[in-house]
């Protein structure tokens, strides 16, 4: 769209006057009084505005956790909806402080874009959704099909790889936004729609007849989704990374939004370090002593955030799966706070 050209022009101008990236993001955020968070344009469960403009979702709660850690107020966040096309250029140009938009961590994005992936908040994979009337049981039966995908995503690339690897023919129609992609799929333009499985569940909710569609069992790629920050600011990188690890550690140690006040009086050394009664781990990050208490009280631990937004407490009903704690058979593992 012409918007791409407009943003490209803006990048040209901003790139000419931007400072070399400095370790100033935390100071800038504190001075501004609000965190600028880049999110999606409406993905239920991850980042979705309701009709009054209040944002909810897993990615939204992550940004609120950062804001809670810095300001002790989870509402001090300004959300910027971004499409898959302009999400990285917005972050590169400092229009946002952190990108929390279900973005897949890949080597080329980590290196050639000048960005750092701070953590994996959701281990996902790519899948395909088809109509039940097609009577398909497996993605391997899709030879010759038309597939709808979103442009500029790993979904486009993984789709090409999968069909190439299995010697199948296909033709892809790529749209600029997820909404247009789903609309085209619903209108019958394509036989299948492909994106991350969590997004498939989420988009299925928006379809007119959700029960007419089925998600095929094949997971055709690894999609570790997480928040992204700019190169060159190690302190900010550490803060964003450790906000996620704090939430995972809190769940592991049994500290939830309901029990966090009681845990301040705990005798267990791990919990005492987590909530800041012992040690100066918050100050080492540039935050306050009670940074984890702020996060868990205002937003919750990882498990609470998951269940509330995409799990059993939500309309998506996705099971924890790989996103369980390592102690419960999943791969969410946080280094210790000590």
């Amino acid at each position, binding site marked *: 769209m012409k918007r791409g050209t407009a943003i490209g022009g803006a990048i040209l101008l901003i790139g000419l006057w931007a400072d070399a990236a400095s370790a100033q993001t935390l100071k800038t955020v504190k001075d501004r009084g609000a965190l600028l968070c880049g999110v999606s344009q409406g993905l239920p469960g991850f980042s979705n505005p309701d009709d009054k403009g209040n944002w909810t979702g897993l990615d939204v709660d992550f940004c609120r956790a950062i804001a809670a850690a810095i300001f002790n107020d989870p509402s001090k966040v300004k959300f910027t909806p971004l499409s898959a096309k302009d999400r*990285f250029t917005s972050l590169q140009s400092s229009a946002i402080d952190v990108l929390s938009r279900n973005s897949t961590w890949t080597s080329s994005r980590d290196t050639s*874009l000048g960005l750092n992936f701070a953590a994996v908040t959701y281990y996902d994979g790519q899948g395909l959704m088809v109509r039940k009337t097609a009577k398909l049981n497996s993605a391997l039966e899709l030879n010759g099909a038309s597939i709808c995908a979103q442009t500029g995503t790993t979904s486009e690339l993984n789709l090409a790889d999968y069909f190439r690897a299995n010697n199948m023919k296909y033709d892809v129609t790529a749209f600029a936004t997820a909404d247009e992609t789903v609309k085209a799929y619903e209108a019958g333009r394509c036989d299948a729609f492909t994106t991350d499985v969590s997004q498939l569940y989420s988009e299925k909710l928006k379809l007119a007849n959700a029960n007419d569609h089925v998600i095929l069992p094949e997971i055709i790629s690894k999609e570790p989704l997480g928040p992204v920050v700019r190169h060159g600011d190690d302190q900010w990188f550490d803060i964003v990374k450790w906000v996620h690890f704090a939430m995972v550690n809190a769940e592991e140690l049994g500290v939830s939004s309901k029990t966090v006040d009681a845990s301040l009086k705990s005798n267990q050394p791990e919990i005492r370090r987590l909530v800041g009664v012992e040690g100066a781990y918050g100050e080492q990050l540039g935050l306050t002593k009670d940074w984890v208490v702020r996060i868990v009280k205002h937003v919750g631990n990882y498990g609470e955030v998951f269940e509330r937004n995409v799990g059993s407490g939500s309309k998506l009903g996705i099971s924890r799966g790989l996103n369980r704690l390592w102690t419960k058979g999943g791969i969410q593992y946080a280094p210790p706070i000590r």
Partner: protein
Amino acid sequence: MPAAPRVAWYNNPKLRGTAYQLAILAALLWFGYLFALNAKANLEAQKIASGFGFLDHTAGFGINQTLIDYHEADTYGRVFLVGLLNTLLVSGLGILFATILGFVIGIARLSPNWLVARLAGGYVELIRNLPLLFQILFWYLAVLSTLPGPRQSLSLFGQIFLSNRGVVLPRPVPGENFLYVACAFALGALGAFALAFWARRRQACTGQPFALLWPSAALIVGLPLAIFFLAGAPLALDQPRLQGFNFVGGLRLIPEFAALLIALVTYTAAFIAEIVRAGILAVPRGQTEAAAALGLRRGRILRFIVLPQALRVIIPPLTNQYLNLTKNSSLAVAIGYPDLVAVFAGTTLNQTGQAIEIIAITMAVYLAISLATSLLMNWYNARIRLVER
């Protein structure tokens, strides 16, 4: 007469003017160089990849309409070519059809038939007042939602199929001797041009008209057709067959292309219609009245008297509309048509992150296309200009 007073070289106004202009030009170039250096330094500081080496990297994604061979393992450079050809295709066909439709509607609006004139007027007022993006989306969604799926496609003679995956036609596969047919067509076209040239010269000299239609048709159509049958009809047809999900074989026009073309053509034709009407109204009424007094019919008045004079007024704004159409084709990304902006400044930009280089290349390409179009139109304009003393 005394000689002009000698002036020191540094007071010579001409020399001074040239020096100032050179200094400003040098300053502008230096400024531009500084900009580029600054951008490069900032990109390096942020460890964002820069340079044009990405054009040799593997693309890894598919494109659903390619006029040249394209495979997922091809480079971003090839993606650029595919996008460019798609843009040129939709722009070229758009310009052609928009001109034809625009002229028809513009002349229709001046028709003495009340209904025809009002219908044309209504068309122009409706179409040119709606944003183009909405019109593109309308045609795309209207086209998509009314057409059936591939398994229930509408078919014509069992050869041409229409579904929401697009129009599928049998693809002509030229045989061995098709080269002779192609040569015959080229010769026939040249012959028709030569004939027209000769006929015009003869009419200028002797005043005798020459009916060009049938001899030209014989040359352009008849000659190749004759060679075709003599060579044993060397043309096979690759029939499309429904196999699994889609049609296999044949030539396919995707619905995105059709919707974009229809939207661009109808939109630009509304503007061209008004330009044509303005051009025709600019020709003095005396010309029409004199021609009518000579007994010429309305169609002939238009063709021989009014339009040649009107074209002088029409060509410059018409160039504008052609450039607008070419640039408006970049809205293709809204409906998933793989033009230059969609695959190169969209997908490639997002995959490589090299926004500055890619946007610069895309802008340079559009600039080149637009400059070429306006050069051509300016040459034509100069050719039909009134030659004054």
